[in-house]
């Protein structure tokens, strides 16, 4: 498991290796030895939620370790009003491009995917820079990038805006619903109802932000907070570190992802974001409005700001009746505890984004864990 593994093989996923399997088994035994009473750990990041399910880690954890989902699913926390804003733009005839993750998220009526079926021009991109080519191909049409994501993803949007500005691509604009992670964690950690024993922190947001923005969780909140990557050995190592700190009554910011996360983070990426974006208040599904938690385009890039170009004003949405995405996202309930789970809300007809997002907790539970009858869940 050292760094001398060839990247080619690593990228091709060596989960089949005996080393990984036996490490996970050892970590699982270690957890059982360390944890003597129930503890709750919040997996902040949706990619962690899905990895934990998909790799089968969830089935190897001791029952006393309760894993709770957090708000780290940028698709899930995009307020319905923001989605409706994007859909209204699409309805007006622009070319709207977004990452695939956004396509099935339901607004008040329909989604990007359903609009595309009706003939509106919604396109999937795998990189923000794809927008340059799309805009150049259709110079007489307005081309808009629906920019959703946290600090891992926002620097790419910043690079897009810089390039569009340098190359004077006037038919391109960005609808920025990027959000910042630390304010959401601050809101959660100050919630007296939320009883947590620790945080498993998002590995790739930390690549950009470094350790400092999360230190308050340990120093002020008094809870272990550990940054981890996404493969099974990373996740298990992160959980063991949290469990050990909890057992010893410690509360430190730790990291098992030192290979990728520098304590100071990626300052180049942060400078790029700062050049283009300014903080503003933003509405999070589940958490409501949070001050300084969103990224808006700076004045000098206002020409590329879709909100200004098209006079948009996202209105805070009301979730469908019975939808409990908000409570799932803040770790208050497990997906199966929502009355709509599996009945009024399924991947086929989702009520809220947690069911449809590739890394929403509800979708993950439904796909990987759902049982016929029975509501027991850990």
């Amino acid at each position, binding site marked *: 498991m050292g760094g001398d593994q060839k990247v080619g093989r690593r990228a091709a996923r060596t989960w089949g290796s005996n080393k990984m399997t036996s490490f996970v088994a050892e970590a699982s035994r270690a957890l059982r030895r360390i944890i003597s009473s129930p503890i709750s750990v919040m997996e902040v990041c949706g990619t962690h939620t899905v990895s934990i399910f998909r790799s089968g880690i969830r089935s190897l954890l001791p029952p006393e370790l309760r894993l709770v989902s957090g708000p780290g699913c940028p698709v899930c926390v995009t307020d319905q009003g923001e989605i409706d804003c994007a859909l209204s733009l699409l309805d007006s005839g622009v070319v709207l491009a977004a990452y695939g993750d956004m396509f099935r998220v339901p607004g008040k009526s329909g989604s990007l995917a359903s609009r595309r079926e009706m003939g509106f021009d919604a396109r999937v991109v795998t990189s923000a820079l794809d927008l340059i080519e799309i805009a150049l191909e259709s110079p007489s049409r307005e081309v808009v990038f629906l920019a959703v994501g946290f600090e891992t993803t926002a620097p790419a949007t910043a690079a897009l805006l810089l390039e569009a500005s340098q190359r004077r691509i006037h038919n391109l604009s960005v609808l920025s619903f990027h959000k910042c992670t630390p304010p959401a964690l601050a809101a959660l950690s100050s919630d007296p109802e939320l009883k947590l024993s620790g945080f498993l922190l998002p590995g790739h947001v930390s690549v950009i932000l470094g350790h400092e923005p999360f230190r308050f969780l340990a120093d002020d909140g008094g809870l272990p907070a550990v940054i981890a990557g996404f493969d099974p050995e990373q996740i298990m190592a992160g959980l063991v570190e949290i469990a050990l700190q909890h057992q010893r009554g410690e509360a430190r910011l730790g990291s098992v992802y030192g290979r990728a996360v520098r304590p100071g983070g990626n300052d180049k990426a942060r400078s790029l974001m700062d050049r283009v974006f300014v903080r503003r208040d933003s509405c999070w599904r589940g958490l409501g409005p949070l001050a300084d938690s969103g990224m808006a385009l700076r004045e000098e890039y206002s020409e590329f700001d879709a909100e200004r170009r098209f006079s948009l004003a996202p209105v805070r949405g009301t979730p469908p009746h019975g939808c409990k995405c908000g409570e799932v996202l803040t770790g208050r309930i497990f997906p199966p505890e929502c009355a709509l789970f599996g009945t009024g809300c399924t*991947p086929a007809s989702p009520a809220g984004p947690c069911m449809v997002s590739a890394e929403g907790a509800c979708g993950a539970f439904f796909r990987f864990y*759902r049982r016929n009858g029975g509501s027991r869940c850990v």
Partner: protein
Amino acid sequence: MRIGLGHGSGGRQSQELVQALLGPFYERGIGPELEDSALLPGGYAMTVDGFTVSPRVFPGGDIGHLCVCGCVNDLAVRGAAPDFLGIGLIIEEGFPTEELSLYMESAARTCSSLGMRLAAGDTKVVPSGAVDGVYFSGTAFGKLRRDTPLQATNIRVGDSLIVSGPIGRHGAAIAASRFNLSVSDLESDCAPLWPALEPLLAVDGLRCMRDCTRGGLGAVLCEWGEATGKHLSLEEASIPIDDRVRSLCDVLGFDPLYMACEGCIIAACEPSEATTVLQLLSASPLCAEAALIGEVTDGEPEGMVSMRTYIGGERLVDMPFGELLPRIC
């Protein structure tokens, strides 16, 4: 309700479309639902299959070759020989005849390699923009070479699940092309499997087979679970997956279980015959990597598929929903 791309992608929506909308149009008694071809009175099987693949030429094949392979495999998994094929073409105005000839020659070559006779055809031309270039539709007939029918309802607790080769190559090849990723030597697995499957028909304990097309291996196994009410249990480490497919899935955020195949089948058989089935399959170069990947159990949850993961954990494998979308989260 409107038909969406998801209804064509082989998962839950496709299943719903077929069952709810088209079910009433098929006379009951011709064959069980959700099999790849229908068993007709008189000892024949019949299939209808449409091909709209884009790009029309892809690493490993083209739309003409794919049309024949798809139909041949649909017949083969029910135990029918590739005897006759009819091809219907829907052609966009302005489409070059040279390109059309290319595809028809390709289809004819594949047919003749199998002794399959091109018996009928039809062409329609539609205005520019009404279709993307050309769409192929194949209708194939073949004589059944097995007395007892192969169907999902034969499946019993204890049966072995065997896949004929590495999964997801066709879907991966198409996705690589669509998203501008260069994957050296990644080709579609598009191939006619009749020569590889014919020897299996003599195995008494063979229960049924399915062609793993859109929706991949995962969709077929979920359909078997739902059709039989039994539990299917898989071993992730046993499922053959080409490293190139794995890398592509990592990069785009896809699950190889749901990537389309066009030359890969799943078979269920009596456990005592599993070794024989594997030996017969791997005698063909097209199925050299055939593998035992799991079994049918009386476990829970009923009607669903579970998998022991690489790291020794357990998780469910659900029916895929909608078209596969690349993700960054």
